[in-house]
């Protein structure tokens, strides 16, 4: 895995969110981006996940040296889990199936992958339940299952435990721990909880005022 972010800037109106932000994610592992609220962590993640376009600067993924990556094939190798999961108006199973269906996978393959993903996040017994009846912690796990089922090479997690209870926070941290052990994806996540960052991260990055200020290798 290689993600090279160089000299990214982003403003909303007159407000600069990211200014000359650079970083290299070279080795596989779990990177945790920390910083106070409003420092630009989420914007950085959304730009890295190709959900938003930077004003200037370059992003290069894998061995692709193109400056502006818009290719859908590349987009499908990475996935972002947002702090609030948008749940489709259907069952938990169908929610997880969405990403696989748009990739044109066969039904038996989809079923097998979904069963495994739901089992991984502990939602297997709720597969047939309506997605919008889940608790906020379960909803966040649904968001993670929806991303994991796609087996992304890079998994972005934006404040995955920001608005959920302690029990679900523990479950999500243990899911991240299991993912680390499996080593299938590189994880890049944001949090403002330093203790959590230490618990789950291999590399801690600190962001301040829209810039990458430091790198804290454990």
């Amino acid at each position, binding site marked *: 895995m290689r993600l090279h972010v160089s000299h990214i800037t982003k403003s909303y109106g007159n407000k600069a969110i990211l200014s000359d932000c650079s970083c290299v994610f070279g080795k596989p592992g779990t990177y945790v981006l920390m910083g106070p609220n409003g420092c630009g962590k989420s914007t950085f993640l959304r730009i890295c*996940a190709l*959900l938003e376009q930077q004003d200037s600067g370059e992003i290069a993924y894998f061995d692709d040296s193109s400056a502006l990556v818009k290719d*859908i094939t590349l*987009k*499908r190798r990475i*996935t*972002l*889990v*947002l702090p*609030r*999961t*948008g*749940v*489709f*108006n259907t069952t938990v199973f169908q929610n997880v199936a*969405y*990403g696989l269906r*748009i*990739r044109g996978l066969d039904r038996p393959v989809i079923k097998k992958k979904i069963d495994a993903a739901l089992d991984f996040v502990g939602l297997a017994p709720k597969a047939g339940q*309506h997605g*919008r*009846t*889940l608790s906020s912690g379960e909803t966040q796990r649904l*968001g993670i299952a*929806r*991303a994991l089922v*796609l087996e992304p090479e890079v998994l972005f997690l934006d404040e995955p435990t920001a608005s959920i209870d302690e029990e679900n926070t523990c479950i999500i941290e243990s899911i991240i721990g299991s993912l680390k052990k499996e080593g299938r994806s590189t994880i890049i996540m944001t949090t403002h909880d330093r203790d959590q960052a230490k618990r789950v991260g291999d590399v801690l990055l600190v962001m301040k005022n829209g810039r990458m200020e430091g790198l804290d290798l454990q």
Partner: protein
Amino acid sequence: MNSILSGFTRAFELIFHLNAELFGIILLSLKVSGSALVIATVLGLPFGALLGLKRFPGRDLAISIVNTLMGLPPVVVGLFVYLILSRKGALGFLGLLYSPSAMVIAQSVLAIPIITALCHSAIVNVDPLIRQASRTLGATPGQETLAIIHEARYGIISAIVAAFGRVMAEVGAILIVGGNIAGYTRVMTTTIALETDKGNFELALALGVILLLLSFVVNAVLHAVQRKGMVPSP
């Protein structure tokens, strides 16, 4: 009072004895309104989706115009369609006036704003997180649009059902452009108007009962669709 009661009795006799004239009228009503609904859906749904999904100059004005057109008086629509289809009108050469096609056009004009406005409303009310979710899961722009339309599906079905209710009950426009010709352009609502004028309440009441039944079915479908779209209690 007696005439109303005897009217109802005769009406049910007509319905249950499968009166040929009555069923011809019902069939034509369904054909005209069904065709108008298909045309209005084919045109109104994409336009409603465009208004709901895209930002472009003049969008707000377009939304205001569509919302205003929802309340179009049928007789005004009938008048305009009449003028366009009449011999000296822009489409007079087609010779459509006083034909079922003219009635379909008039009803389509009435239904398009309803479907457009209600579809726009259904789509614009879809949680913005749905668009982001589909994008983060690797959807192409086209798949993203389909995901949003799919989320709005219950609202869209409600829009179509509401438009059907409106065109089925409409009388002013089709009377002007169709002419209420027996066996050719005579539909339920125009027949009720005509037979009431003539004092022939039996057929008018029979058709009134059927219109009410159709209205009931339409509303029952609408209610079922809305219930299906509701998130169940945890």
